[in-house]
């Protein structure tokens, strides 16, 4: 045998004919039976990286400072699970309100009406332009700015009034703060999505007599979802972590719960590990959902296009032209 330019993994077939005769080894030259070169560098890199990773994980698991037994003790504790529920419900409720508000704001920003454009622009400008922490504190302390919240006809009589301190609890302040902030970001994400849909689609829907709202709902938004879903998943994950900010207004979310435990037991790191693992668990589950949603909205855009012959260009409409 001649020298192989690459290392051959395991040659199976032995040459039966003289190798230098022209055409005699044609069967062997069929690339379908070729062997791949062994990727030596790659294998080496894999081994090194895996070795380091295993060593690191083993080190972490054996490191007494992480306090894994404490982590296990508290992982399903009442306080932690309650905090988890608060975090999740805050995130879900704020996200739902955020999307529900963000959609009309996005449509408003693209409107031809200057008032709609101005108002929605101002909303995004304010809630995106100020820190969430400040917004939360302001909402929580709304009673300082407005001691009374009243429903009244502008410049006219008051229909109903509430004491701000009764309305604004840590829960309502947290939801209002998170939801309005989220709405500002979602409005921009949704606007980007709507802009990504080809103009001809709206035009076609209108040409067929569809009203604008129906055209948006049936034609434009489903196509915009492809662009909207990935950054929305991002937003939801940041939202789950942003809920940890509500601990400043005494809302017992996941982070606040573990803090309340380690303030008592002084096991700071193990309790933070409990929170970290839960946050990672939630975001992993969400990523799975996100890719499911993405696959749904990618229908009609499969890469595996079935190529078929364009047969019979002539068309069969002869049925009704018998009179001609």
């Amino acid at each position, binding site marked *: 045998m001649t020298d192989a330019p690459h290392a051959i993994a395991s040659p199976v077939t032995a040459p039966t004919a003289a190798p230098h005769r022209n055409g005699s080894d044609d069967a062997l030259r069929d690339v379908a039976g070729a062997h791949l070169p062994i990727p030596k560098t790659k294998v080496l890199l894999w081994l090194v990286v895996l070795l380091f990773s295993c060593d690191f994980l083993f080190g972490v698991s054996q490191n007494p400072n992480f306090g894994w037994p404490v982590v296990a003790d508290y992982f399903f504790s009442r306080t932690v699970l309650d905090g988890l529920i608060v975090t999740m419900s805050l995130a879900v409720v704020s996200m739902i309100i955020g999307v529900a508000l963000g959609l009309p704001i996005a449509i408003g920003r693209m409107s031809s009406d200057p008032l709609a454009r101005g108002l929605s622009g101002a909303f995004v400008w304010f809630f995106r332009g100020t820190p969430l922490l400040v917004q939360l504190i302001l909402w929580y302390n709304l009673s300082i700015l407005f001691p009374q919240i009243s429903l009244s006809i502008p410049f006219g009589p008051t229909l109903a009034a509430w004491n701000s301190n009764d309305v604004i609890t840590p829960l309502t302040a947290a939801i209002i703060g998170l939801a309005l902030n989220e709405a500002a970001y979602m409005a921009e994400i949704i606007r980007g999505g709507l802009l990504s849909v080809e103009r001809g689609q709206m035009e076609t829907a209108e*040409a*067929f007599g569809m009203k604008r709202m129906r055209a948006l709902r*049936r034609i434009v938004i489903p196509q915009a979802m492809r662009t909207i879903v990935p950054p929305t998943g991002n937003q939801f994950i940041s939202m789950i972590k942003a809920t940890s900010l509500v601990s400043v207004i005494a809302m017992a979310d996941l982070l606040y719960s573990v803090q309340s435990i380690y303030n008592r037991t002084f096991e700071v790191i193990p309790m933070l590990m409990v929170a970290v693992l839960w946050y990672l668990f939630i975001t992993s589950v969400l990523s799975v959902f996100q890719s499911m949603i993405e696959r749904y909205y990618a229908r*009609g*855009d499969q890469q595996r296009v*079935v190529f078929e012959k*364009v047969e019979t260009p002539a*068309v069969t409409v002869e049925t009704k032209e018998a009179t001609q």
Partner: protein
Amino acid sequence: MTALANPSTQTQPILRACNVHKSYGNNEVLKGIDLEIAPSEVVAILGPSGSGKSTFLRCINRLEEINKGFIEVEGEQIGYTLRNGKLLALTNSQVAAQRSKMGMVFQAFNLYPHMTVLQNVIEAPIGVHGVKRAEAVRVATELIAKVGLSDKLNAYPRQLSGGQQQRVAIARALAVQPKILLFDEPTSALDPELVGEVLSTMRDLAKQGLTMVVVTHEIGFAREAADRVVFMDGGHVVEQGTPDQVLSNPQHPRTKAFLGRFL
């Protein structure tokens, strides 16, 4: 044939455009178009690029607003209503109702990419015309069979060739039982070998007595299938008549120059 050449003498025109002007800023694209189309008439609008023929077509269903003159479909003015001697602009939903009487086929097909062929065709009948789903599906299946794509009912537009997509777009336009079918350069975005299948579908429709306005560059189609050829240039209707008159014996020098390029 005389009825078609001079439609107003015998039947009420289905479409009447009177002194239609349209400008984009200072650029006047339509400079006074007068045109009447009789029911069941097939009109081919020819003309060089930039002559305003596509713009005129889009004015008919008010995808573009006109600046002067008026357009009527079945005696109903598009976009406006005359009440007590005052001309009032219609609301968006009233315009939508007027558009729902027309079908349109676009140069770039504009199928809804997230819907299957069947869903594309039943969308407007169900959503705009309030047809029951089962009935809409029955009619759509028939129409899709007519354009020769029965085996593609559940395919998505991107799985189809350009010619197949345009045939679906034609089925979609037929599904709303339009009074007028508008074609905006339906074969211009197609590979040459796919033009034939779309034109043959359109030729079959022309024989069935549908009113069609076809903006096209296909002289052959205009000659065979159209009752009347309208030649536009520079925002004016320069010449019109039967295909024979306009295509074989053009009178206006610009028509002659335009057709000369196809000989």
